[in-house]
């Protein structure tokens, strides 16, 4: 494989909205895997840290023509226009506290470097970034379940989905110790992918034609990864953020809800 030779990966996700049940297991798996804190009241969604948030979409029609669909939204790990790694957020962070890895395509977040200016949050149109408005507090004793693989964040900084980067590192370490340079598809999977009871989330290397994500999304390398699968779409494709999370839906209205269209744009834009 050409890509395997020069080792440049483009990890990404395909989420099948026909399968997603809105059950929220992915959200909880992410919270549990990544030591995401919680408060006594989490009903103010504007201050509730959810690296992965399941949005509820509706078609806006009255009963009984109404329809709903759930859309899980992790960080899109945007590659930016032309895949140069100028993600909306990365390009604006003044302290290089969030970065685009050309090795994996993952947008990192360095908690100890972030000084909490929140410019990246203003830049992200997906609201994938969350600020620690409070000190994280676990009820007495509950800090026992915290995972040592992900450091809990302090007050005053921004955090977001990392594509469970620590799992990549652990998998890499293991592979290296076994004398391998390349990871198998199944060796690096995110916590949400693993947990989803509906098998709605697929994760892998979008550059690798053998990986399921590639086959599902059929990214067009000549067009910044635009999906060629007519049922696939990305959120806000038109802004040029170049996300690495693809969605599948057999429903036209759902695909259309993924982006903004003018009436004059017609329907073809949404496939």
């Amino acid at each position, binding site marked *: 494989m050409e890509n395997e030779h020069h080792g440049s990966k483009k990890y990404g996700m395909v989420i099948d909205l026909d399968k997603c049940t809105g*059950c929220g*297991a992915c959200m*909880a798996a992410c919270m*549990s895997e990544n030591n995401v804190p*919680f408060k006594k009241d989490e*009903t103010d969604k504007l201050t509730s840290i959810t690296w992965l948030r399941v949005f509820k979409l509706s078609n806006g029609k009255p009963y009984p023509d109404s329809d709903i669909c759930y859309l899980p939204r992790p960080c899109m790990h945007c590659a930016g226009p032309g895949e140069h790694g100028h993600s909306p957020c990365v390009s604006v962070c003044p302290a290089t506290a969030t970065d685009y890895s050309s090795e994996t395509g993952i947008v990192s977040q360095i908690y100890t470097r972030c000084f909490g200016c929140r410019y990246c949050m203003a830049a992200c149109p997906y609201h994938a970034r969350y600020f620690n408005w409070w000190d994280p507090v676990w009820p007495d004793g*509950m800090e026992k*379940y915290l*995972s040592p693989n992900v450091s809990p964040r302090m007050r005053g900084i921004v955090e977001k989905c990392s594509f469970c980067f620590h799992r990549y590192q652990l998998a890499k370490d293991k592979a290296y110790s076994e004398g391998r340079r390349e990871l198998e598809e199944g060796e690096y999977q995110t916590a949400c992918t693993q947990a989803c*009871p509906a098998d709605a989330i697929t994760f892998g290397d979008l550059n690798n034609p053998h990986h399921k994500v590639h086959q599902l999304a059929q990214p067009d390398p000549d067009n910044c990864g635009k999906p060629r699968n007519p049922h696939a779409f990305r959120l806000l494709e038109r802004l040029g953020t170049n996300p690495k999370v693809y969605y599948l839906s057999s429903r036209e209205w759902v695909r259309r809800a993924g982006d903004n269209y003018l009436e004059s744009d017609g329907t073809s834009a949404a496939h």
Partner: protein
Amino acid sequence: MKIDRRCFLSLGVGAAAGVALSPLPWKLLDDSSIWSQNWPWTPVPKDGAASYVHSTCTLCPGGCGITVKKIGDRAVKIEGKAGHPVNNGGVCIMGLSGLQLLYGPTRVQSPLKRVGERGEGKWKEISWQEAIAEVAGTLQKIRAEGDAHTVAGIMESDRGTVPRLMQRLLTAYGSPNFFRMPSMQDSYEQALYLMQGVRAMPGFDVENADFILSFGSGLIEGWGAPVRMIQANSNWRSTGAHVVQVEPRLSNTAAKSDEWIPVKPGAEAALALGIAHVMIKENRCSGFADQAAFGFDDFVDDEGRTHKGFKQLVLESYSPETVAEVTGIDSRRIVDLARAFAAAKRPIALTGRGRGLTPGSVSDVMAIHALNALAGNINADGGIWAVPEPDYIEWPAPEMDRVAVDGIQKGRIDKAGGSEIPYTQYLLNRFALTAQGKGDYPIKALMVSEANPAYSLPDTRMFQKALDAIPFVVSFSSYMDETALQADLILPNHMYLERYEEVPAPAGYSKPLIGLTRPVIKPLYNTKHVGDTLIGIARQLGGNIAKAFPWTDYESCLRNTISGKWDSLMRKGFWWNAAYKPAPASNGFDTASGKFEFAVTIPRGTDKAGDALLPKYQPIIPEGDIAEFPLLLMPYETMCLSSGYTGSPPFMMKTVPDTVLKGNTGLVEISPETATSLNLDEGDPVMLTTPKGQANLRVHLSDGVPPGILAMPRGLGHRAYDDYMADKGVNINELMGPVEDPVSGLDAAWGIRANLTKA
């Protein structure tokens, strides 16, 4: 030396410049940021060796295999067990949140004796010896007074060693009053018994079905074994199976289905019979109805009376036009639906509204089950199987002394299984009434284990009154739940990650399977396995009761009981009969006719001349006066909220949308049309009133609910537990009340009349 102004100023400027050029400020700057990166109040999880323990989740009847990751002696993550027959690596939000229960603040940390008023939450820690002695002493006293029958026990399930120990204790002691929490299980089991003559559990071979006709079941919202069902649903997407959801509200299941039939509330069974009508009329039934069934055609009973068969009944009374009127579904659509169902290779019709938390009407279940018979999928691939009750518990019946025999003979307080309601085992919905002196005798003591009836039974206020009237209430709960809060004594069980226990038969699963839950970590607190506690109580009661409990402890009881399968359980975490297939329908049925009975004529062993019981549409009328309560309140279930077991830990609460709960106020869903007629807008505060109670809420406008309907989720409004769960929204059970099913006496309520006013 005189320092003049000039000198002073120069010195000052010089000093400032000096400090700025020295390393001091820069070092301070650096140190302060390093400090901010290591704030001592931000926890740093301790590292250690990673290990994995395979166990079984008990947080719902789903029976998923789980793998718990440990770092040192800490459990840090719960994941689905790959390769497990039920959930193959999947896990639900509830199962994922288990560690927050384990380490959370709601645990009862030692035996507690109430010192304040009931419900006040004032406790004294006591020793296990004292606790067991106190229970045994009180029971001994009640027994001595000849009131053994007035002791009741409530558990979530009646399957498995622990529920059986509780039942055994009550039996040997002399009480018939063991209760299982109500659910769909009750009505489905009864329907199976009546139509197929088996005491069995329905197994749904959903993986192999190609047309799923669901009458209100929350297939992806916790019905049956939740993870298994969600996986099956995804699988249907690839196999091209057709899913039809018959349900008034646009639930997630309805939205994900291929076809949503927005039926009028409560009219699901009518639709089923309309479909039956079309199938019969157009001759689209399988041969099963003619060949293997009884009561399809008109028939003559032993005494020469002619009875109308199912066919005639359906053809006369359930034409698509009639049904269209009842259900609000266009008659064309009914015909199309019937044709599609009949044309499918392996269609399955199933029910149990939402998660199946209310038993529902047995007639409804029979009407829907009849469709399976018409389609010929009883005990067939992709159909409904009768799965035998697990039979590994082969304890000799306890020896009964005279007191015990007398007690049992007094009869159950709910009259379940009595002459009026011969096929129903438990009627917890009557418990509240009878315990208030409306029964044949008062209840003097109640033991509750793994159940939280003070929260989860409809009409909680009534149940509270019943509790108030019981002089001695014991809870075995691991958590300070609503029922435990009302107890006089709490003898806390280990929670499921700290104990051994077998988990029989995941709900709705089509093959016999037993899971094993095992200690992931050592018990954190001074708790005791409820099995050991029950054995301890029996021992102290002495005599025949003690004799009925020959085991040294629960673990040995479990090992002995399960002996042949123990190895498999320990090795794989589960035992199953992978090759299991039910006896084909051609083998006949265990009914009086030896066939599948559309017309249930002869309750076996009794009353041979009983009237024919046919699947009919018998509307269940919701409680309340329509003039006073012009609207209807219907509960719904969501995976984000636990509606039973333990409430929803913080992970789950975090996923609850702000259109369901905002701050501490719950929201009730209404259609924009209804909102306009009530002059209400999104978020307006309202007072919701039902015949059972009232609650302050806000409204959320949703196009998914039909006009005139109010929808609210189950699982909010806890009053016990911790600050992360308590006092958030409204417990819908406080607003609902049971409506007895005329056939079974079970709670068949699917809603309650309600009124909504601007607050």
